[in-house]
């Protein structure tokens, strides 16, 4: 009886109705609040990374979520007072309403720079001061504002600067959001280059075996024998050097030869030395990404090779070979589709690892150089860290917080995903280290 009731219920569950699907999704989301939070963090990273500043190549979008330029010095303007009487070009004395001006202080009268030499008289709110005038003194009408402009260094978090400004008067909020673009770019470039090359080498190594396998795997052995951080440091010192061959190649090579965009006319596609999609020191960023890609690729090669070793024993591979398929065809059409899922999972697991690796080496002062608003580099700024001990905590706190939040998000999504895909652990919430390898791999570079 009980079974008869249970059966139709289960069938109902399988119906792929739209409304039901949404409801199931909502149900899953309710069961995994942490996963949803993680998903939110990860989408935030992608959103900030993409829309941080709309200076995309070729297209100028009028859309940006960064309120200030992350590299610009922010200035604040104080109004010191107003001119109480009109002044002509030769006047050496001003009558000012509203502020006590000291000798030596300077301010702007419209476009003219004026410096106070001494105070002449003070009657109530009205001051008369002797001044040295700018290079080309002009006449000013009564009521003109006296403005004083200064760099807004180390401002507290406020409404106009939500995360405050740092010691160079740059807006920390803008830098933190822009950091998402750097992290995302480095993560994606590293994972795409590393995982694709690694997978290719892994397939070749596993498929051919023998001498090719030995050569590739000994190379991998050597690279895996380095602790990851040390390996990255060594690669970047070698490759990132002022006049290393790789840097020269990246700076000079036509990356896409003969590329003719739709807008018309061939455009010289080179990695710009400086500004590219708003990122200063783009070449350094790119080199860091490639170095991390190498470390990622080594790991991928090993894993993919292991999978290929078992896949190539399948009968369909023998069948394809007996039908006269070439090695390349077997690898591409019969073996590669079987490792694609693995490769995609590896890529998504390694993305936060790559982001964290970038932050780590930038923190050690070897990755992305400083004016670039990278989270790790912001944390490494000596001056900021000294000032942090004096109470100016925001220039260091927020980039680090963003970094932690993103890594946390990726971890939570990974946990929820593993929960959903492993029915054995269902109901026990976060699945623990279900895949010990996954957990270990996830934190390996640190």
């Amino acid at each position, binding site marked *: 009886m009980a079974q008869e009731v249970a059966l139709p219920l289960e069938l109902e569950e399988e119906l792929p109705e739209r409304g039901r699907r949404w409801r199931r999704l909502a149900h899953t989301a309710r069961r995994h609040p942490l996963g949803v939070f993680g998903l939110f963090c990860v989408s935030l990273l992608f959103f900030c990374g993409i829309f941080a500043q709309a200076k995309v190549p070729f297209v100028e979008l009028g859309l940006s979520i960064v309120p200030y330029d992350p590299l610009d010095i922010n200035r604040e303007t104080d109004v010191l007072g107003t001119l109480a009487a009109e002044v002509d070009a030769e006047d050496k004395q001003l009558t000012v309403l509203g502020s006590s001006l000291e000798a030596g202080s300077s301010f702007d009268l419209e476009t003219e720079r004026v410096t106070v030499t001494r105070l002449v008289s003070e009657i109530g709110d009205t001051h008369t001061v002797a001044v040295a005038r700018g290079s080309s003194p002009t006449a000013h009408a009564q009521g003109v504002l006296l403005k004083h402009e200064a760099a807004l260094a180390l401002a507290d978090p406020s409404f106009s600067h939500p995360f405050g400004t740092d010691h160079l008067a740059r807006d920390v909020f803008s830098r933190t959001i822009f950091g998402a673009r750097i992290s995302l770019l480095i993560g994606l470039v590293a994972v795409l280059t590393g995982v694709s090359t690694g997978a290719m080498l892994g397939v070749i190594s596993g498929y051919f075996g023998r001498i090719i396998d030995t050569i590739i795997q000994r190379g991998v052995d050597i690279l895996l024998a380095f602790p990851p951080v040390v390996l990255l440091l060594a690669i970047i010192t070698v490759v990132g050097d002022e006049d290393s*061959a790789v840097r020269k190649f990246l700076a000079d090579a036509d990356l896409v030869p003969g590329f003719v965009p739709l807008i018309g006319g061939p455009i010289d596609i080179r990695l710009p030395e400086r500004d590219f999609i708003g990122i200063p020191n783009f070449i350094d960023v790119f080199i860091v990404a490639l170095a991390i890609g190498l470390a990622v690729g080594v790991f991928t090669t090993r894993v993919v090779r292991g999978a290929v070793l078992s896949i190539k024993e399948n009968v369909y591979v023998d069948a394809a070979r007996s039908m006269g398929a070439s090695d390349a065809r077997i690898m591409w059409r019969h073996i590669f589709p079987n490792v694609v899922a693995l490769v995609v999972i590896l890529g998504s697991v390694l993305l936060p690892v790559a982001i964290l690796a970038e932050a780590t080496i930038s923190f050690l002062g070897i990755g992305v150089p400083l004016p670039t608003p990278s989270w790790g580099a912001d944390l490494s700024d000596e001056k900021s860290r000294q000032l942090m001990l004096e109470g100016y905590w925001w220039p260091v706190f927020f980039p680090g917080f963003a970094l932690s939040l993103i890594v946390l998000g990726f971890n939570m999504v990974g946990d929820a995903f593993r929960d959903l895909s492993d029915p054995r652990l269902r109901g026990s919430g976060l699945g623990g280290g279900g895949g010990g390898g996954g957990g270990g791999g996830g934190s390996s570079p640190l």
Partner: protein
Amino acid sequence: MVGVSFLTFSSFNVIPGDACVLRLGFGSTPETLEDCREQHGLNRALFPISIHSDAPWLHVQSSQYGDWLWDIPAHQDLGRSLAEGGAEVSTELERRLPITLELMIMTIIFALVLGVVPGVLSAVRPNTPIDWLARIASVLWLSIPSFYLAILMITFGLLWFDWTPPQFGSGYKPFMDDPWINLQQFFFPSLVLSVGIAAVIMRLTRSAMLEVLRNDYIRTAWSKGLRERTVVWRHALKNALIPVITLVGLQVGALIGGTVIIESVYNLNGVGKYTLEAIIRRDLFVVQSLTLMFAFVYVLSNLMVDVAYAFLDPRIHYN
């Protein structure tokens, strides 16, 4: 091992400019540069074997790489630093190795305590507040980068509690001289470093314990009327710890990377900081020796994991 050192050596020689250029500045005359290179033997041939155009056989010669490699077993000599003063690598190591080793050992101890205990507790009482707390803690610990945690602890310790970690600038006190000061010095760096590893250990302990607690022999132990403490800590944990031990061994690589970071944050004069400085200074022989040592430790720890595995689980045999 030789492969590692070979790779380090050749890649560092691909970079134009060497330690002498860096030390004397770019404006130095060719003569002084040549002197400096002579002094450190940087003008020798790179590799011990070369093929000459006039004689088509392999030619054995005195070389930078060959001599350095030969001196390790022959004279227990790792070469000397190219920096001003040029300390020998082995004496530097003698001074710095105890610091790093102590840091690593304390980190592993902390990580085991912070990982295994909550892991077991949360596995024994699944879906209770303890379990939730442990699981959330593990995700948080896994996510916060160690250098950020270190900076936060230093800063907010100072700002809120007017407290600074014991300084290392005044000098490292060996454990034998003053155990109390020594432990104080190492407490926070190793705590910070252990957090990430503890999180991984905690998750693995929890899932291993959940697995083990389902076994028949645990049911037998319960039905014998043994106390909970005995069942959990004696019968179950012993078996659940096997994968954990493996994990600790595999985390040694992460640990070495961690010492590089933590030693530079806390200004500990250990091997990690030495490595970072040497890499920045492009101090060829030092980097070479250190990477060789790291790789050695790394490979050795992986080997030890295999041995420990067979030792702990009598069912596993290696032929």
